[in-house]
C-alpha cells in the first residue's frame, strides 16, 4: 500500500471497505487478463450479493484470468480519491479500473445506474462507449436490469441477459481469443453468443434470447466465498436452493426474468451449505429462493442442515415462506434458539385485488397463520403491501385497514403490526408491463388515506417515497435517450441515488425536463 493511499484511508469513514485482504480473497500472481467485477453500490451492499460471489468464483477458476472486485466508494472517499488524483481501484491488487481488460457491472436496481457512471469516471474510464478507444477496457453489464438495457446502452459495449455464470466464461474466452483484433470484430462475434445483447448490433433487446442455466446441481457455486472482515448488510453465507418462482404474481419481475423454475437437489444444497459454513465460519446460513415453501425437499434439507447447525450455534434462516401449518411446524424446528418476527406479503388488502394480481393468498390463510403465531408467543407481525396496483380502488386500500384490525384480534394479548406500503412500479417483461403508474400526487393521496385509516397505537404504518418509485419507473421503462440525464445526475448528485439520504428528486426532475421532448415511456409521456 503506498503512502498516498494510507493518508487517504486515515481520513475516511470505515476504511475497511477499501482494502480487500479478506479470508477467501483470490489474488492471482500471473495473469493474461484482468476482469474488474463491479457492483455500483457500497462494499457492504455488494458483498452481500450472491451473484457477485458466483461470478467471482467462476471467473477466478479460469486459468490466466484474475477477477478483482470494485465497489462504489462512499462520498467522502470519492472526494479524497478525486482530490488526490488516485483512480478508483480494485480491492485485490489496487489496479485502476482503466488498467483492467474487462469491466463488468452487476445491475440489480435502476437507481444504481448513476453510480455505475461514477465508478467508471472515478476509475479513469470514459462513460460513453463512443469516447472509449480501442485500448480502453471493455465495459459490460449483467443482472436483472439488463431486461431493459436501453437507458444505459450508450455506456456499455454489451449486456448479458439472464443467468451469467456460463456466458461470462464464454465471453472472457472469446475476448482472449480475439486479443489484438478490433473491438468491433470482437463484438460481432460476441453478439452470436446466446444471452448477449450488443447495442451497436442488435436493433431490439427482445431479439436476444435470455441465457438459462439448466441444471443448478452441476453449475458452479461459491463454497469458498470471500468473507468480509467488516460488517456488511447480510453477515451470513447464502445457499441458493432454487431459481425462478412458480407463483407468477403479475407485478413481479423476478418471477418472469428467472423462469423457468429450477430446483437444486437437497443433497447438493446441503453439501454446498456445509462446505460454505466450514470455510467461512459464519454463524448464519440463509436459504435463498423466491418462494421457499415451493421447494420440494424443504423438510429433508432443513433436517440435514439443522443436524449440522444446532450443535454449532449456527442459525438457519428461511426467507419467502408461505403462511400455512407446514410452515409453522418448520419454523418451530428452526427457531429453537431465537424467535424472530413474522413477515407476510399479502400485497393487496382485498381478496378481489389479490386475485387480480394473481397473489395466491387468502384472508383465512393470513388469519390462521397469525393466530398460530401469536399463540406460539410471537407478538409482532409485519405486512407488506403495494399501492397503486392496476384496478385498485379506495375500497381495496381501506381493506388493508380491515385486515390489519382482524389480525390484531387474532391474538389474546396485545400485538403490534407494521404495515409497509410500497408503490407499484410497472416493470418490463411482467404481465403488468404496459399498465400505467399512478402519478405521484395520486400515490401520495393514497398514502394519506391509509395513514388516516390506520390510526391505532398498535399499528405502525410505513410507506415508500412515491418520487423514488416514479424515477424507478422511468429508468425501468426508459429508452436510450435517458443516457445524458443519467450522466448529469451522476455528475451532480452528492451521493448514491439508491440511498434515501442522497436521493435528489429535484435533480432528476431538472434533468428529465430538459430532455422531456425525447423521452417517452410506454403509454405515458413523461411530464415530470
Amino acid at each position, binding site marked *: 500500500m503506498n503512502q498516498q493511499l494510507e493518508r487517504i484511508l486515515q481520513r475516511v469513514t470505515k476504511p475497511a471497505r477499501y482494502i480487500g*485482504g479478506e479470508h477467501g480473497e483470490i489474488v492471482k500472481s500471473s495473469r493474461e487478463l484482468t476482469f474488474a467485477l463491479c457492483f455500483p453500490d457500497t462494499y457492504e451492499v455488494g458483498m452481500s450479493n450472491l451473484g457477485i460471489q458466483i461470478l467471482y468464483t467462476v471467473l477466478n477458476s479460469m486459468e490466466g484470468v484474475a477477477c478483482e472486485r470494485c465497489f462504489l466508494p462512499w462520498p467522502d472517499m470519492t472526494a479524497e480519491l478525486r482530490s488526490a488524483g488516485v483512480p478508483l481501484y480494485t480491492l485485490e491488487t489496487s489496479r485502476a479500473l482503466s488498467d483492467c481488460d474487462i469491466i463488468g457491472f452487476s445491475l440489480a436496481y435502476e437507481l444504481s445506474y448513476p453510480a455505475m457512471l461514477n465508478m467508471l469516471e472515478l476509475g479513469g474510464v470514459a462513460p460513453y462507449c463512443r469516447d472509449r478507444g480501442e485500448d480502453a477496457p471493455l465495459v459490460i453489464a449483467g443482472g436483472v436490469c439488463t431486461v431493459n438495457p436501453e437507458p444505459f446502452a450508450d455506456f456499455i459495449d454489451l449486456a448479458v441477459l439472464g443467468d451469467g455464470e456460463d456466458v461470462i466464461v464464454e465471453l472472457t474466452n472469446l475476448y482472449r481469443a480475439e486479443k489484438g483484433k478490433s473491438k468491433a470484430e470482437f463484438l460481432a462475434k460476441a453478439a452470436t453468443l446466446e444471452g448477449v445483447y450488443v447495442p451497436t448490433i442488435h436493433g431490439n433487446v427482445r431479439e436476444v434470447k435470455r441465457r438459462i442455466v439448466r441444471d443448478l446441481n452441476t453449475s458452479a457455486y461459491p463454497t469458498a466465498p470471500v468473507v468480509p472482515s467488516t460488517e456488511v448488510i447480510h453477515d451470513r453465507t447464502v445457499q441458493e436452493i432454487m431459481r425462478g418462482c412458480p407463483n407468477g404474481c403479475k407485478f413481479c419481475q423476478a418471477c418472469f426474468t428467472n423462469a423457468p423454475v429450477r430446483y437444486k437437489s437437497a443433497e447438493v444444497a446441503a453439501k454446498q451449505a456445509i462446505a460454505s459454513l466450514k470455510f467461512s465460519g459464519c454463524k448464519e446460513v440463509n436459504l435463498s429462493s423466491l418462494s421457499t415453501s415451493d421447494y420440494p425437499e424443504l423438510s429433508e434439507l432443513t433436517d440435514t442442515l439443522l443436524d449440522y447447525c444446532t450443535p454449532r450455534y449456527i442459525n438457519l434462516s428461511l426467507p419467502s415462506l408461505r403462511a400455512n401449518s407446514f410452515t409453522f411446524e418448520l419454523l418451530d424446528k428452526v427457531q429453537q434458539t*431465537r424467535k424472530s418476527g413474522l413477515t407476510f406479503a399479502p400485497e393487496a388488502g382485498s381478496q378481489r385485488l389479490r386475485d387480480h394480481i394473481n397473489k395466491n393468498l387468502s384472508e383465512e390463510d393470513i388469519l390462521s397463520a397469525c393466530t398460530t403465531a401469536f399463540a406460539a408467543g410471537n407478538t409482532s407481525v409485519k405486512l407488506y403491501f403495494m399501492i397503486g396496483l392496476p384496478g385498485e380502488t379506495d375500497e381495496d386500500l381501506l381493506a388493508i385497514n380491515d385486515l390489519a384490525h382482524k389480525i390484531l384480534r387474532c391474538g389474546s394479548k396485545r400485538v403490534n403490526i407494521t404495515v409497509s406500503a410500497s408503490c407499484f412500479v410497472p416493470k418490463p417483461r411482467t404481465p403488468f408491463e404496459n399498465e400505467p403508474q399512478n402519478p405521484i400526487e395520486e400515490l401520495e393521496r393514497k398514502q394519506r388515506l391509509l395513514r388516516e385509516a390506520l390510526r391505532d397505537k398498535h399499528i405502525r404504518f410505513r410507506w415508500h417515497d412515491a418520487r423514488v418509485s416514479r424515477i424507478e419507473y422511468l429508468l425501468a421503462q426508459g429508452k436510450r435517450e435517458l443516457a445524458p440525464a443519467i450522466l448529469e445526475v451522476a455528475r451532480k448528485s452528492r451521493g448514491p441515488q439508491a440511498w434515501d439520504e442522497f436521493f435528489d428528486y429535484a435533480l432528476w426532475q431538472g434533468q428529465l425536463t430538459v430532455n422531456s421532448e425525447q423521452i417517452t415511456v410506454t403509454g405515458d409521456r413523461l411530464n415530470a
Partner: protein
Amino acid sequence: MRKCRFVYSKTGKARYLSHLDTMEVFRRAFSRAEIALRYSEGFNPHPVISIVLPCPLGHESYCEVLDVTLADDFGFGGLCERLNNALPSGFRVHSAALPIRKPGDLQYLDLKLELFYDGRVPNLALLDFAGAAWERMDNGWSLTLTSLPVRLNPTQLAESFGADFWRVTRLRIRDTNGEEYR
C-alpha cells in the same frame, strides 16, 4: 474448560479493522479452525472473546492480547498454527498460553511513532522528550517511546508534532512492574 490468552499482531491491511470487526474476525477464525470456545448462557448464546486493550483504528500493533475460554481441556500446542491458517491478511498469532496477569495489570506500552513532513523537516531531536529514541528518516522522524502509560492517547501525541502524516505502531505491552505483560 480452560482459559487461554493469545498474543497477536495486527498490521498492514488489518490495521483498518475496528475493534468490533476484529472480534468478529477472530470469532469466525476460531470457527474455521474448529477450535471450540465456551459459549455464553442465555437467549442468544455467543462465544466470549475479549481483547484486553484494543488498538485504535488505523494503528498497527505487534502485541495485541485476546482472552477466550476453550470449550475442552485440550492443550495449547498447534493452536497458533491452526488459527493463523484461518485468519485474514494482516493478523498473526504469536503465542497461546494461560493468562498470568489480570486485564487491569496492563499498564505501560512501548510505541513507535513515524512522523512525515511534506515541507521542511523540523529538528525534533532537539526536543527533550523523556525516554525517546529519535531516528531521522528521509522526510521525517521515527521515534521510539518506552513505558508510556496506557491512558495516554497516541493519536493526540502524534498530532502534537504537527506532522502531515503519521503512523503509530505498538511494539510491547508491560505490566505494573514494567515487565512484559503475560
